[in-house]
């Protein structure tokens, strides 16, 4: 008998249909992965099981958990079930814990809510649960507060809360999306271990095919509130039926075609760059400390080259990016673009700046919502001494928009009228408009769904061919770097630990950290 059986589930919020005819089941000890892009309804399916739906939600169909028909239970009965029979882990570990209560307290609460035990007893069991998620008390006392822990450690606390009562079902909603790749690998391993140890069933929700395919026994693919494909893993990947799932898989492994014409002249030369920040004084009259974010980094980017810069959060890649863009002055070393320093004296060098542009990660925060597309796209003209006006300006806008696959008429629209992918195209158009030689792509595709991401990668490859652009591709996502760059740099704690041709770095990593990174990255099963 299934532990969880969802049959013909329909869900509406207000008048909006969210789920249609969703059926799936989880057996004890089984890991079921639910995959879908944003808006596919995968999280809402999980919340329906927990019955933690937003106001105005109406569910029809049946959801049976361990013999209980969830949809007909009263609220107190549901409370008795939640945390006890079914635990849940959430996406954002930074905010999932109450900031003002200690971790021991929060884990113990799960126990206290459901069982009549003393506070000491509950704390003892909380200690055990924390030890199980590899937060032993000697290093992580129960009195710690969430803000004293890293993201990965907090996620472990959330997991400890979810499994404290050894529930039969664990629901993990994008449990690693907000984490670095190495941390992600550890958390996934932990989850798998716990499931196997306790014989729990797990419903694992993710947008990342690779993450789920590594772990799941069965896979459910969802799109716009419907299940399009179900099957055992990894067999399913070789026998996909629905066109959507096929294209999704293809997009996940998509490698754009690129013709590489790298010249031997360095376009960007970074030598011995150092950048440190002051940290607050430890004592009132003590010296302020210093944190070295970038510790003597050197590399070249050749004309026409696509160079990757890989590293986890906090490794200094953002600082380095800002230094290259001339937004911050460096304390040591030199950054030259086409032989000229980006900083002359203490002010950024306009002549150099106009040769490079940048595309940011967040398609929603990259544009002033009050300006129209034409004004947004023209912003870099500020760098020109004689910016084009009138007809010439119109022509430039039109050219930039069409070259990224938009139409000239789009210039009159406001940014909110575009989707995430289209916005990223506009961001690229903005970068192209002054015909730079180098474009920095700062996590430029990380926030996009896989299919859109594939399209943007194609666009980038095209543009580089068309305009002879060089790219500096900054990302934490190894799979993306692997398909779009010629050479790549691996950065850790302010230093470049390894660099070389991309394929070589990936297939034969030299530095232990690189090896760790590559091993941690989830892989899709080889396609038949």
């Amino acid at each position, binding site marked *: 008998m299934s532990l969880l059986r969802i049959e013909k589930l329909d869900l509406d919020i207000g008048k909006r249909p969210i789920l249609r005819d969703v059926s799936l089941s989880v057996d004890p000890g089984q890991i079921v992965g639910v995959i879908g892009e944003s808006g596919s309804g995968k999280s809402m399916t999980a919340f329906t099981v*927990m019955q*933690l739906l937003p*106001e105005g939600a109406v569910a029809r169909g049946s959801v049976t958990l361990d013999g209980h028909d969830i949809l007909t239970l009263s*609220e*107190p009965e549901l*409370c*008795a*079930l*939640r*945390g*006890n029979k079914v*635990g*849940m882990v*959430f996406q*954002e570990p930074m*905010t*999932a*814990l*109450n*900031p*003002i*209560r*200690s971790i021991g307290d929060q884990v113990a*609460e*799960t126990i206290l*809510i*459901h069982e009549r035990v003393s506070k000491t007893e509950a704390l003892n069991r909380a200690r055990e649960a924390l030890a199980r998620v590899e937060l032993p008390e000697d290093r992580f006392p129960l009195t710690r*507060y969430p*803000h*004293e822990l890293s993201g990965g450690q907090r996620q472990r606390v*959330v997991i400890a*809360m*979810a499994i404290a009562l050894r529930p039969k079902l664990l629901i993990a909603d994008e449990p690693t999306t907000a984490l670095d790749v190495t941390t992600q690998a550890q958390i996934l391993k932990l989850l798998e271990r716990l499931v196997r140890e306790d014989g729990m069933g797990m419903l694992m929700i993710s947008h990342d095919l690779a993450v789920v395919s590594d772990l799941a026994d069965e896979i459910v693919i969802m799109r716009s509130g419907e299940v399009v494909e179900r099957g055992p893993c990894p067999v399913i990947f070789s026998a996909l039926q629905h066109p959507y799932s096929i294209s999704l898989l293809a997009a996940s492994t998509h490698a754009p075609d690129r013709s590489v014409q790298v010249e031997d002249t360095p376009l960007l030369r970074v030598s011995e760059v150092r950048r440190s920040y002051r940290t*607050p*004084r*430890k*004592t*009132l009259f003590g010296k302020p400390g210093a944190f070295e974010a970038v510790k003597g980094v050197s590399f070249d980017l050749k004309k026409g080259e696509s160079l990757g810069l890989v590293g986890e959060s906090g490794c200094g890649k953002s600082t380095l990016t800002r230094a290259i863009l001339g937004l911050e002055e460096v304390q040591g070393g030199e950054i030259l673009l086409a032989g000229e320093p980006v900083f002359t004296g203490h002010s950024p060098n306009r002549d150099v700046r106009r040769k490079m542009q940048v595309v940011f990660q967040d398609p929603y925060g990259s544009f002033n919502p009050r300006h129209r597309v034409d004004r947004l796209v023209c912003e870099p003209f500020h760098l020109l001494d004689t910016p084009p006006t009138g007809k010439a300006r119109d022509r430039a806008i039109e050219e930039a928009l069409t070259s990224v696959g938009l139409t000239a008429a789009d210039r009159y629209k406001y940014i909110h009228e575009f989707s995430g992918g289209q916005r990223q195209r506009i961001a690229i158009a903005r970068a192209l408009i002054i015909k730079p030689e180098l474009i920095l792509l700062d996590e430029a595709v990380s926030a996009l769904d896989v299919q859109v991401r594939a399209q943007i990668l194609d666009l980038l490859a095209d543009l580089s061919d068309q305009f002879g652009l060089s790219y500096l591709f900054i990302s934490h996502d190894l799979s993306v770097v692997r398909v779009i760059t010629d050479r790549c740099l691996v950065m850790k704690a302010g230093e470049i630990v390894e660099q070389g041709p991309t394929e070589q770095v990936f297939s034969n990593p030299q530095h232990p950290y690189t090896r760790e990174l590559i091993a941690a990255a989830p892989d899709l099963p080889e396609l038949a």
Partner: protein
Amino acid sequence: MLRYTLTRLLSLAVSLAVASVVIFMAVEILPGDPATLMLGVNAQEDTLAALREQLGLNGSLWSRYLSWVGGMLTGDFGTSYTYRTPVAEMVGERLWISLPLAIYALTLSTLIAFPAGIWAASKRGSAADVGVMGVTQLGVAIPNFWFAMLMVVVFAINLRWFSAGGFPGWDKGFWLSMKSLTLPAIALALPQASILARVMRSSLLDTLSEDFVRTARAKGLSKRQALWRHALRNALIPVLTIIGLQFSFLLAGGIIIENVFYLPGLGRMIFQAVSARDLIVVESVVMLLVFAVIAVNFLVEISYALVDPRLRHGR
């Protein structure tokens, strides 16, 4: 935490120094000569000069400022021109009315606002919520002196449940004194309670939509439990800020209400001192109030740390 406290203390001291200069200069340019006021219309020039000398009004600006600040630092607030009693003593007496009144009003406002705000937030969108919000909307909009006037007419003149004003003195009995502070406290508390209830509600709604409340619900806590055990304490920070602001406002801000109920409190003292050009009282009391506000804010900030461990562990 210590470093944080010390830096805050330092900036507190700088603020006070700047405030003292501002106040002194403002009071200095106040037109009207206290000596003339004291001696009246038929006073002769030599008598006036003698009195001014006596009051120490003839020194240079700088020396008067220094002696004022120096005096305050040693607890000597000078002597009132009009009453000829030490300002510190007068403030001490007035504080025995203003402080209890402020506390009374604040207690009332908190006792009304907390349940109302929590109730409205927990029943968001319901008739109860709309009702509470409507009443608070009125409470914010009603001029409190007008409300005080209406209360006097109803409760003092017509029903004669309360005296129309005045203060019998604590030595005449605690309950009697509290009774005489009741109408003023209600008048002061009404708008404050309305504001506080609204802040409580909105802050609680904010926290209720936080992820950790959802986590708590996933643990099996009921809505109610999640609200009381997780949301409430987190929602308190903005509420504490408002309470701090309100307390310092109530301490001085009762001027108009103290006038309506002829309570001899601090606010009324300032008002009278300004009209009587009792400069030393004005200076010292305004300075004290500024100090009180800054000190209360400081305490509020420190009290955040009690609520929030993130602040307790050195920022």
